[in-house]
């Protein structure tokens, strides 16, 4: 039986009729066309589908769209400024080459923003623990961690550390 779900996605109010079993990630990708949120494993392990619900990072493949009814959702498309200026965490991933194939990147960035919001000055250990829910199949963790550390500093208003070549 279809049901109507209404939520705020990247600042815009949306309302759609969906099947009750629709996952949030399916809703975002197929109904709203926000394909920046990826489906990597479909078994709740890889974290490519991480979005923010009322500021908390969650796996959108392990949540029904109906559960997000009334919530404020932020996807990777909602991070950059309206003029296209990248969020400091996105800029840090670019500067520090925190991606190889890029498939896990949206989830990594969304998890990183959540963890830095909760812990503004994370240690390398904090970052590695905080990213436990995200898997990079290219195994590019070293630069991802560097990027998150640099992104954390930039989010605190510091300047973006340049990548050491």
């Amino acid at each position, binding site marked *: *039986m279809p*049901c109507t779900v209404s939520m705020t996605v990247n600042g815009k109010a949306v309302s759609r009729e969906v*099947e*009750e*079993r629709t*996952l949030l990630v399916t809703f975002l990708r197929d109904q709203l066309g926000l394909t920046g949120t990826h489906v990597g494993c*479909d*078994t*709740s*392990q890889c*974290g490519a589908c*991480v979005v923010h*619900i009322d500021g*908390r*990072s*969650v*796996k959108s*493949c*392990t*949540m*029904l769209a*109906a*559960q997000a*009814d009334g919530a404020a959702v932020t996807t990777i498309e909602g991070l950059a400024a309206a003029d296209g200026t990248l969020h400091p965490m996105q800029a840090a991933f670019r500067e520090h080459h925190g991606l190889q194939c890029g498939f896990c990147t949206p989830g990594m960035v969304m*998890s990183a923003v*959540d*963890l830095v919001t909760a812990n503004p000055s994370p240690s390398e250990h904090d970052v590695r623990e*905080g990213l*436990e*829910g995200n898997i990079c199949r290219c195994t590019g963790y070293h630069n991802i961690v560097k990027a998150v550390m640099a992104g954390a500093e930039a989010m605190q208003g510091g300047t973006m550390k340049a990548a050491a070549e």
Partner: protein
Amino acid sequence: MYAFTYHRPKSVADAVALLGQFEDPKLLGGGQTLLPTLKQRLARPSDLIDLGQIPELQGIREEAGGLTVGAFTRHAEVAHSETVQRVIPALASLAEGIGDRQVRNMGTLGGSICNADPSADYPAAVVALKATVRTDRREIAGDDFFTGMFETALEPGEIVTAVHFRTPDKAAYAKFRNPASRYAIVGVFVAVFGSEVRVTVTGAGPSVFRADDMEAALAQDFRADALNGASVSADGLNADIHASADYRAHLVRVMARRAVEACG
């Protein structure tokens, strides 16, 4: 996922009423086990009753010699609660070790204990901390709540509303986790109440259990070395691709030692 009808009641009474109306309803907590199960078509409930919008199931408060945690309280809320960190820090640290950050942001205490996964962390705390499980109709002693693998003392249609944990003199939880799933291969919770010591084990057997020999040894002498002569039998312990029963039995003592040391 098979189709189902989704409900979002606003009170426990409404949820109980809904449970009684349908052929094969299931309660939805944070969904971190149930939704993956449904996605694999391992279950086919007729109706999902989401408990996420019921205020009386939420919140953490100090009460009668301990803490009362609402059934819908998420792991991250328990882990970061100043009240839990102050009153029973071992409980906050257990919650911080469940799954990953995103799972902790969704998963709930009630969901964890009602699912009664043999490798879940919370059952060790429920039994070690002499908890009382409150439901819509009665109170169940933590000691009696877990009855087997994925089995609890709950009746059909009964809803857990909160868990009351008693404040121990000291306590700690040590876990040897599966690095992929982060479930406990073996987790041991040690809690001291006066002259009584409780040692509970999760992950090792079909359901959480108390390690009697270790409790007796620690009641005599609360030091990690007091466990040198105590052990648990490998008979009936879980054996799988991750660890044999013998290895799990060995890990129980190692984790118990670590928990005792962490008690300080």
